[in-house]
């Protein structure tokens, strides 16, 4: 099947702003399983013929769009920006204004910064320090990196106080694990260790109960008593005798809640972890989980997500679960299943969980 001739990149004609309304709406309407693709294809052609002056409007079209629509628009903006740069018609001031307006969504603001970085790297450098407290964790990376480099240089020159100040400023803005790890080590070396669980917002104090069975991985879908009712005084028949709740406080900098510690290294078992999180207000949040076992997470009795993958790897923020905290006490229940594998890399029966906003900034419990 031949594809129809597409002319978008061949013409330099440009569309006025008024004509962008419909193509932007068509692209924003794309949905799962290819929904809206046909209209979006035509709309993309129209957008890529837009006048470079419309770039901020197309960027604004990404505000609040779903991730699929964001990608459609990201690709269109890339083409418009390429054409604008070639024609020396890039509206750099308007793009900068768009970037600095934090009411705009993070994704198009990142695109705006990338355009500035490509077109005028010296301007991007000038803007960078202003992004340290930015709502976008991706934009924060630039000033954090710049401050870290400044700290390294100060250290090489023997200016320990200046280095410490730079690293502390950088740490305040840092939200990504790689940058935080690096800075935490530097600060520790300078005698200023960082409270990493607090920085990340890991939940450290839990009640654990185990072992229930997970023979043939059937425990994952079996509803054991803690899923029906939280009764911390209850004792249930478990896989190897009675199962009862026990206190567990993580001592790990990265908040690992390790079932192997209280229950020993068991196989084909299911455990539960329960904690309460006191929120000062009703608010949107993210519960972020790292886990290499089968798991389920409930917030206030609502299942947020479940995944039955075992021992393929775990990392910080592996899963980002949108959540709505209510004011006051919030109940968090985690189910963590261990399988039958016996290789050395299948010993872990653990998870790490933190509560944060969508930037990755920790939301700390009221008490």
């Amino acid at each position, binding site marked *: 099947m031949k594809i129809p001739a*597409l002319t*978008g990149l061949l013409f330099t004609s440009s569309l006025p702003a008024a004509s962008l309304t419909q193509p932007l709406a068509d692209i924003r309407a794309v949905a799962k*399983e*290819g929904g809206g*693709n046909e209209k979006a294809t035509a709309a993309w052609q129209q957008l890529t013929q837009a006048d470079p002056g419309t770039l901020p409007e197309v960027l604004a079209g990404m505000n609040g769009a779903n991730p699929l629509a964001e990608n459609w628009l990201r690709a*269109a903006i890339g083409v418009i920006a390429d054409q604008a740069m070639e024609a020396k018609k890039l509206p750099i001031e308007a793009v900068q204004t768009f970037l600095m307006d934090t009411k705009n969504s993070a994704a198009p603001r990142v695109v705006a910064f990338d355009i500035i970085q490509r077109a005028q790297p010296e301007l991007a450098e000038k803007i960078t320090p202003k992004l340290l407290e930015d709502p976008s964790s991706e934009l924060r990376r630039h000033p954090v990196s710049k401050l870290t480099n400044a700290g390294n240089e100060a250290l090489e020159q023997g200016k320990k106080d200046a280095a410490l100040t730079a690293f502390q400023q950088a740490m305040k803005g840092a939200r990504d694990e*790689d940058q935080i790890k690096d800075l935490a080590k530097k600060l520790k070396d300078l005698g200023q260790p960082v409270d990493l669980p607090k920085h990340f917002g890991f939940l450290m104090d839990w009640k654990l109960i185990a072992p229930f069975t997970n023979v043939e991985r059937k425990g994952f879908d079996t509803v054991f008593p803690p899923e029906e009712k939280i009764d911390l005084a209850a004792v249930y028949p478990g896989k190897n005798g009675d199962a009862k709740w026990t206190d567990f406080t993580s001592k790990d900098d990265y908040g690992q809640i390790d079932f192997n510690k209280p229950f020993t290294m068991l196989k084909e078992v299911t455990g539960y972890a329960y904690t309460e999180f006191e929120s000062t207000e009703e608010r949107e949040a993210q519960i972020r989980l790292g886990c290499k076992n089968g798991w389920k997470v409930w917030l206030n009795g609502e299942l947020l997500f479940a995944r039955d*993958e075992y021992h*393929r*790897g775990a990392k910080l923020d592996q899963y980002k679960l949108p959540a709505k905290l209510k004011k006051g006490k919030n109940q968090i229940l985690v189910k963590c299943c261990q399988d039958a594998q016996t290789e050395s890399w299948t010993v872990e029966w653990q998870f790490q969980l933190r509560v944060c906003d969508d930037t990755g900034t920790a939301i700390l419990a009221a008490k």
Partner: protein
Amino acid sequence: MKLALTLLSSFVILHSSLAADWLQFRGPNASAVSTETVAPGPKVAIDWSVDLPGRGLSSPIVVGDKVFITCSSGPDQASLHVFCFSAADGKKLWERVMKATGRTMAHNKTSVAAPTPCSDGERIFALYSSNDLFAFDLAGNLLWLRGLTYDYSNASNSLGMSSSPVVVGDTLVVQSENDSESIAVGIDVATGKNRWKKERPKAANWTSAVVFKGTVALQSSKGLTGMNPKTGEIEWDYTDGAATIPSSAVTENAIYVPSNGVTALAPEKGAASQLWRASGLKPGTGSPLVLGDSIYVLNGAGVLVKGSLNNGDEAWKLRLKGPFSGSPVAAGQFIYIVSERGDFQVVDITAKEGEVIHRVELKDTLLCTPAISNGAVYVRSDKKLWKLK
């Protein structure tokens, strides 16, 4: 009559130009063997190289005079790049950068740009381990996109995925096989919408499909399943288990499956009869290839083993300089393979015991499978794309 002749000559021109294309992982029919008449020959050298801004072990593909390649950049490899370069001189013709909508977690050795893109000659289909799938025309116009993990939220593998898509007629077949929500989908190349979606064995799988007599053969730990690409209906099923890393080799008459060594099958509708089994032929990470009357298997120790296509009996063994992640490819009498340490090696299979007759030191880590087109070989690393000629 004149019109008929014109059409015929157009067809011949089109056909011969297609013959120089390398449209998918392991090239024509996923056979790893070039069908073009102008082979690269033994004494290849670097013609050009270009820098890449991100990681990847996907193979380049070649459509006409354009080379396409994917890579992923950023701290979580969430920026997904598609590049189009001029095959003649490596000049960048266009680049598109998108963002992953699915999970980008992967083992350090692999990367998000692990699956090789494919093409039907008019469109480029770029798939990533995050399950993001983009269709562009050759000029870089975005035709459609999908986020298969956005659609099916547990379709991911925390080690990363690498199955490369294949086009059969007007259907793009994509595997997203893993321990949790394991699926394969047949997608309309024109609209990006599903023609079909089928559950697949719940087990991690990094193999790529091959096409045999119009069926698309999907490999997994359970075996090899022949499906109608248009409907997803199963036409034949081999259920004696198969590898989850090296993929099958295919010829006009048989499929050679990495299963209990190598098992040769002659599938027909309703049955996948076994021709022979050679337990001594054990492909490592790379997939086997068939050239002439022999099958060549690169085992986990870096030894290239030549076997008979009639019964799998071993003819000779040749130790190469490994280790290897990519698969060997071939043109004429030469097999081309690049080691993880960047040792590009050319094997002359007509030598009595096989012989490495040429090497090129690329001084980088290379995990990809080479591509062959227009008398040149293309390879890539996390940092560079090379044309060897």
